[in-house]
């Protein structure tokens, strides 16, 4: 495993220590009546452990089914643009506070390498992952630039974020496909039955390809060894 580009991460076993369970609250499915989400975005422009998050804008997902989105992000002030270009050696962190149509709030944190955000010209992709009931379980950020190559970016590309929002629904897990298998078996059985009724040719017509070689073989062997065959015949008398 390469050490630089593949961050060596080994996962031990997580130990939970805070047993505060947040109580039971029944969730109504957001998918059933096409829920809405509003996301409040905050980002950290200083790459320090205790950096403050400041507002970046907001995204309204009008329909989680059709993926119709309203993006409202502020124009970046020049000093913030300078900070973003200074982030090239660090990470850019984004906090997303999501409010569902039902008024449930949750907060997510995500990050990208500062250089990929800078080099993409602030073209980022925000993926909102929903669970089976249409509630968000993750918001993750990526950029259109996968690998940093150190190319410079024009300052005018650092004025606004060019954000693409993707909504990722949960897929239906597979179930054992018994019906298709049974159908297949039945089709095969039918084909066999049909084959048996149709094939009413004579024995010789069906198996001539086996019989002919045997006959030829017998002929050849007896032709090659005529004395033996004759001797045998003589012995029979």
């Amino acid at each position, binding site marked *: 495993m390469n050490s630089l580009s593949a961050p060596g991460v080994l996962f031990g076993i997580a130990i939970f220590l805070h047993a505060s369970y947040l109580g039971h609250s029944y969730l109504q499915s957001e998918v059933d009546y096409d829920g809405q989400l509003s996301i409040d975005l905050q980002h950290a422009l200083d790459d320090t452990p205790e950096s403050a998050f400041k507002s970046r804008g907001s995204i309204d997902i009008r329909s989680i089914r059709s993926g119709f989105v309203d993006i409202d992000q502020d124009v970046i002030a020049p000093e913030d643009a300078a900070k973003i270009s200074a982030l090239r050696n660090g990470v850019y962190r984004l906090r997303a506070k999501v409010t569902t149509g039902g008024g449930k709030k949750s907060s997510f944190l995500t990050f990208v390498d500062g250089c990929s955000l800078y080099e993409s010209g602030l073209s980022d992709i925000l993926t909102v992952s929903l669970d089976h009931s249409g509630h968000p379980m993750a918001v*993750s950020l990526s950029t259109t630039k996968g690998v940093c190559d150190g190319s410079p970016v024009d300052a005018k590309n650092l004025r606004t974020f060019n954000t693409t929002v993707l909504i*990722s629904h949960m897929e239906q897990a597979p179930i054992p496909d018994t019906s298709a298998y049974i159908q297949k078996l039945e089709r095969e059985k039918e084909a066999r039955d049909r084959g048996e009724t149709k094939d009413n040719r004579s024995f010789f017509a069906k198996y001539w390809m086996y019989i002919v070689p045997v006959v030829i073989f017998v002929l050849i062997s007896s032709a090659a060894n005529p004395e033996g065959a004759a001797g045998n015949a003589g012995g029979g008398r």
Partner: protein
Amino acid sequence: MESTPGQRQHQQSVQTRLFYRENSQLYGSTAGAEIATRNQHHNIIPALKSSSIVGSGKSELRDESHRSIGFAVLCGPACGSRIVVVGGPLIGLIAGMALTVASGPVSKSSDMCSKGYYILWTLFFLQFFTCVSCLFEDQIGKFDWRQRYIGKIRFAAFDAVSGTRKILVATEQNVLAALHPKSGNILWQQVLEKDESVQHMHVGKELVSVSGGPRVHVRAWDKTNGLLAWEWSLSQQQSARARWAVDKGRLYHVVPLDGQLEVSAFSLESGFDLGSRRLAAPWTAGGAYDCVLVGATVVCVTQHSFYWTSLADGGAFAEVPLASFDLTPAAVPVLSGVGELAFSLRLPGKQTVFLMGDKGPRAIHEASATASLLATPFDSNIMFKLENKPDSSALQVSAVSLNTGVEVDEYSSTLILGSKFSPCTLTAAICIKDECAAVLSGDDHTISFVNIPGQITWTREEALASIISTEIIDLPVSDLDAAIESEFGSKQEDLGVATGIVGMVMRRLTSQVMQIKVLAQTVLGLVQPASSSGPSRASLIRDTFGLHKMIVAVTSAGKAFGIDNLRGELIWQIQLPRFAPLHVGKSPVVPLYVLRTTSHVPFTPLCAILGKDRLTGEGLAVAFEPIKGLVLSSDALGYKVQQVMQLPHPDDEFLRGLVVLDDQLKVHAYPPESKANAIKQAASLYMFTTWPAKGTFAGFSFAHSTKQDLVATKVWELQLPDGPDREVVAVVGKNPTERVNSQGRVLADRSVMYKYINPNLIAIISQVSDSSHKYILNMYLVDGVSGAVVHSATHKRARAPVNVVHSENWLVYSYFNEKMRRTELASFELYEGKSRSNTTAFSSKSNSVRPLVEQQAYIFPSTVDTMKETITEKGITSKHLIMALPNGNILELPWMFVDPRRPTVQTGEMRDEGVIPYTPELPIPPDAIINYNQTVNRVRGIHTAPSGLESTCLVLVYGLDLFYIRVAPSKAFDLLKDDFDHFLIAAVLLGLVIASYVTKKLAARKARNQAWK
């Protein structure tokens, strides 16, 4: 009980295997043929597409006596399933024979298939992939061993009445067993319900056990063979203070209620309810009392008085004040039974033994508060007293006459345990004609048998019934190899000095002088031989094939063991009295890491375990040497452990330290000296942790670490939505030591589907309740570095138990389908597609590819206790799943059976690819049960480790029993069989050589004769 059906099963299995032997000869059973067949159906080599002669898996062919006889180069479908063999003429001959045998059936079977004989086709595949576990009768126990354990003793009794003397025990693991008093071997064993416990044991004509939770089972067992004689059950409310007693064919159950004691009586054999009575006991109201049943008498004590009454006649309680025995009242008195006739009252500082008579308790003896007391049954009237002496690591056994209350000197003895000392209690004792014996149960779960007077005869290490984590470790190289290693494998700075020819010559000469010196010392006997205790160091040396290893096992009993993997003998054990496991949810975990392997002579190998202090609950780390079992340090960490991971790169001394995240999200390095190494790697280090109760998952970066300190910054966080009864049931990453040999899968059109191999991928499975579907099971695949959700899927009406196997580019898990009421396996496989995003190395951060997901589900005809994938050294060998089934079988299921690409309708392309047609239900073929008739009870975990041979994987199954075996998922393609006929091959070769000489002579003579004509 086990013998008759066991034998039958065994005979069957042998017959099946013989059947396979015949068949395997049909298909060519030499090593070469196995390579050919394996490669035919595993297009493991994408490189073959471009070049037709290249082989990717080079395997050395070796025979059993460790000689290398040539190399075979494996080849994929591009060169038409042929083996290209380089090496001596011997190998050429073998391969030639193999090819002629192997090629016939292969082509025949494809003919069959084109005619639509799917069943035959499937059988043909079954043929290949299940006869991996073929075993002949003489191979039983050759590659595997099983050890049976029963757990820590709860009740024990001697059975001196029936034919053979034996010790009958009931344990905390809910097991009943009979042990042989001479050897400690298990005579018979009955494993009762899981997650319940034995509440009472009585030995009379039969062994009667009372076990279970709300539903209590009363069972009688034949003492000789452990067969169930009769059984009945009753429902009872649970109470920690409920007591059971058996007397004169009646079973009594005493439960305290508010101000009363309810005594229920049942006919022992039939379970007939003989009615219950409530005895007024106003003194129970405060709760500061204790009761004990002595025979059929219930004795209770409060702060001031004894109360006692007979269960049989049911009179009111009689009261005897404690003051009448000159005892000062204490707040919480404790009573404990001392055999059938006596009991002891424990007060601060001392305990007093009372004999129960018709007229109430009578004080007979005083002992220290910590002493363990037990009266022997029958008429010997002797009570044994055991005192733990931790200062001198010894146990002091003495005897007291119950008649007089005076110590009997002839029975007193001191047992010196040394380093194995652990506090013990007496659980059973017996005296027959002046010969006495006792069974001791240690706090470290040992069972010891003592002859009194005398010494400990045998000890059973029952801690092995509660293994939590294991690791299989390479043995060190031999001294000679070590000298060579140290000659060549020095540190960088040393090499810097010794450059150039002169330097190298000097190094060589000095090392050879050293070697001569070592040799001289050995010959002259100056070197001290290894200590005689335990197996000698000479036997613990790495073998050529890397099959001999050391199993390190850490148990929840605060004890760690080193086990030789070949025969299963215990090499070392270490006591960790203050060590307790950490917990994830309810399940205990002990992270066990190999900090330094045995390959770095002269540095000592090092392992570390993390747990918590039994008393303070704070983190406790223990570093030990894994070959000799020496504890090097035991450090109280001073914080609670939240997450731990191992550094990916070692430091100059080949030590890969640990990074520990505490519950305040501060970062520590362990051992502390590896901090500098951790800081050096901090920029590319990420950690993932989870709070299952909150449903939160977070990732941390260490990029903000300063030159002095490690700092963790949270860079991503996921939150599972709140739901009713939301529960995170599994969080499973990949094995960090896993290597993936083939980067793609060759399709029928010779194009390559590249695998999505992300080493940082974590599978998370959560379960929520739902009004319409009852239970919903959600699966998320999350990248542990970037926090991106790579894939997610939801199962409706499915619930735990969930067992997950996550490896390479696939994920398989079992779950329970509520709707169909059956266990199913879901299988996922991830591909990048026809092109690769990054050809050199994988990076989670720059990879935004959403993988293509293949998915399929299968019905599994049994529930699954636990499962694990096989792992081999280079990852060339195909993967199998090792599954523990609740009936004690261990199943080896080829991953190919759960391949999500199995097509419903078999097309020609799929057939070329070697994918079996889809069948919804998976088989459990009896010959794929790798433990044949050796039932493994209550499996909790399976550990797999690679051996030095690419074909072979070492498997350790642990639970109540221990089972070890070697498996070869693609058959032993790099190892000649035991019955390989060296003599025949040599004879044929010799014959050919002689024949060629003779014919040469003959030809020469004929030519000469012709020339004369």
